[in-house]
């Protein structure tokens, strides 16, 4: 078995452990044996309600969103050849959140099941177009600093729009909107798990299948072109795929930052930059990371709850700064 295969088997095990931990730990601690009983439909009905009814949707949604955001981060980094690129840092998550909040405030979500994901996807597309457009207008192409600056500005702008929109909404929507900005899984239901799964899982599979041409893109578009990649078509597929993933993930849980930064970088240190291993590894590790981050978010100040984005930002910002310094030094 190759080294990457061994690592992936280890990550599958870690992912499974994180799911069990997410189900066992909470306001009421449940022994692992009882968690497994509840999952198989036996055991105490009250425990079953907590594990299957309350915690399972939340844990599954966190796993899906973590997988989606981590893979999107890795894809953005390769596409832009920028180790700091990530849906949240680039403002794409905030764009998706504006789309989602718009759909909610204007009542579109009550008319169609598709409205929320489509609105969030559209917001993500608008954000990435604006960020790349601003960087291009500055005449600096994919320059790291211009892209990051554009991302920060666009992100701040979209967050302001969210606050503006919720001013027109009732108090309940206002509270929900705050969760969109920081991200939370408190609203997870089996429906939201299904909606995210239906859109995100096929998109993640498609992105993973494009791992080899993505490897070529990471050494430059000109080189990829001459190695036989149809660069224009590939870029379109990758941007649409990641916008869809980010949009639907944000529609499910709000804009959670830094997952797409921390996870791919940790994995590159362990197993290198080959996307044929990196993307599946991101799915498993990103999933586990967000399940554990959410477990911390809902237990650390119990009975109150932190937005999960606070936990990921506390973990992510030091990594971001470390990368920024390292990147500056040109290593």
């Amino acid at each position, binding site marked *: 078995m190759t080294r990457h295969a061994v690592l992936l088997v280890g990550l599958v095990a870690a992912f499974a452990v994180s799911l069990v931990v997410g189900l066992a730990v909470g306001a009421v601690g449940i022994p692992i044996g009882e968690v497994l009983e509840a999952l198989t439909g036996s055991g105490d009905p009250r425990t079953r309600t907590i594990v299957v009814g309350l915690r399972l949707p939340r844990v599954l949604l966190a796993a899906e969103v973590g997988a989606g955001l981590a893979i999107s981060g890795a894809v953005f*980094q390769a596409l832009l050849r*920028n180790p700091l690129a990530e849906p949240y840092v680039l403002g794409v998550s905030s764009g998706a959140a504006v789309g989602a909040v718009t759909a909610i405030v204007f009542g579109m979500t009550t008319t169609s099941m598709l409205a929320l994901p489509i609105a969030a996807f559209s917001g993500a597309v608008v954000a990435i177009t604006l960020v790349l457009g601003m960087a291009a207008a500055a005449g600096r192409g994919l320059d790291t600093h211009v892209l990051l600056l554009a991302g920060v500005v666009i992100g701040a702008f979209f967050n302001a729009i969210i606050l503006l929109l919720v001013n027109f909404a009732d108090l309940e929507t206002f509270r929900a909107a705050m969760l969109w900005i920081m991200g939370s899984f408190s609203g997870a239901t089996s429906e939201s798990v299904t909606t995210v799964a239906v859109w995100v899982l096929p998109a993640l599979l498609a992105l993973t299948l494009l791992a080899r041409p993505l490897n070529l893109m*990471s050494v430059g578009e000109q080189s990829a072109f*001459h*190695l036989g990649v149809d660069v224009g078509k590939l870029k379109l597929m990758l941007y649409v795929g990641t916008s869809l993933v980010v949009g639907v993930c944000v529609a499910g849980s709000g804009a959670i930052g830094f997952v797409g930064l921390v996870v791919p970088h940790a994995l590159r240190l362990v197993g290198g930059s080959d996307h044929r291993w990196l993307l599946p590894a991101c799915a498993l590790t990103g999933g586990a990371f967000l399940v554990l981050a959410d477990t911390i978010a809902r237990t650390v100040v119990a009975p109150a709850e932190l937005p999960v984005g606070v936990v990921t930002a506390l973990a992510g910002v030091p990594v971001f700064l470390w990368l920024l310094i390292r990147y500056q030094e040109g*290593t």
Partner: protein
Amino acid sequence: MSLFELRNVSYRYPGAGQSALEGITLDVEAGSVFAMLGPNGSGKSTLLRVLLGELETSDGSVTFSGRPSDSWGRREIAMEVAFVPQAEPMAFPMNVRSLVEMGRYPHIGVLGRMGPEDRAAVDGAMERAGIMDLGGRSIRNLSGGERQRVRIARALAQEPKILVLDEPTAALDLHFEMETFELMRELTEEHSFTVVVATHNLNLAARYASRLLLLSKGHIEALGSPDDVITADTIGRVYRWPVLVTAPEGLGPGAGAPQVVPLSHDGSTSSG
């Protein structure tokens, strides 16, 4: 037989005031080293990009192997023509062998697997480029010359018939520069490759290439054998600097080829 045929090709960058290339007509024959020369900004890189289908001509036509170059599929043409860029962004660490294996993409595609013939092609390419012992190293820990050889190995792993290099020796010391030109000679003489190279080194181009193209401000200033193109008058005019052209014997490959010696500004060979 002509591999590339350019007929009256012009190219203007979007938004640019004037054309980067104007009225270029030329043929690149199979089985030789063809060198593109010219001062900075004369259009060498643009011409390479037009030749390779990276830029669409504003006017005129480009054909490769008798077919319009835009009718070739990306993977189809990458099995015929390989390109070695001057430099590449290296945002992430990657080992040398993985980089060379990228050269097999045109043969295996998005989902295919590396077979024994692919591994043999990668081994052969690494051996020819002299990087067999670097396979497990990270590209970040290599010198400029070593990185260039890795890019050449990746191009050779494509198993192309034509190798196109954009200023391959721009940042290299004399040793790597000579090795690169010797490799070009070996590929054309012993393996019937065609090499197209854009370079600033007039003297090595005159020794190693059978045909030279001299560009100036997007126009063809001279096209032909080294003796036709490298004259004191032409070089002096295009580069706006007085030069002496000699033909020293005993140079090995390209013996008797014209060699350029820049003079001091007042036209003398000595500065003192």
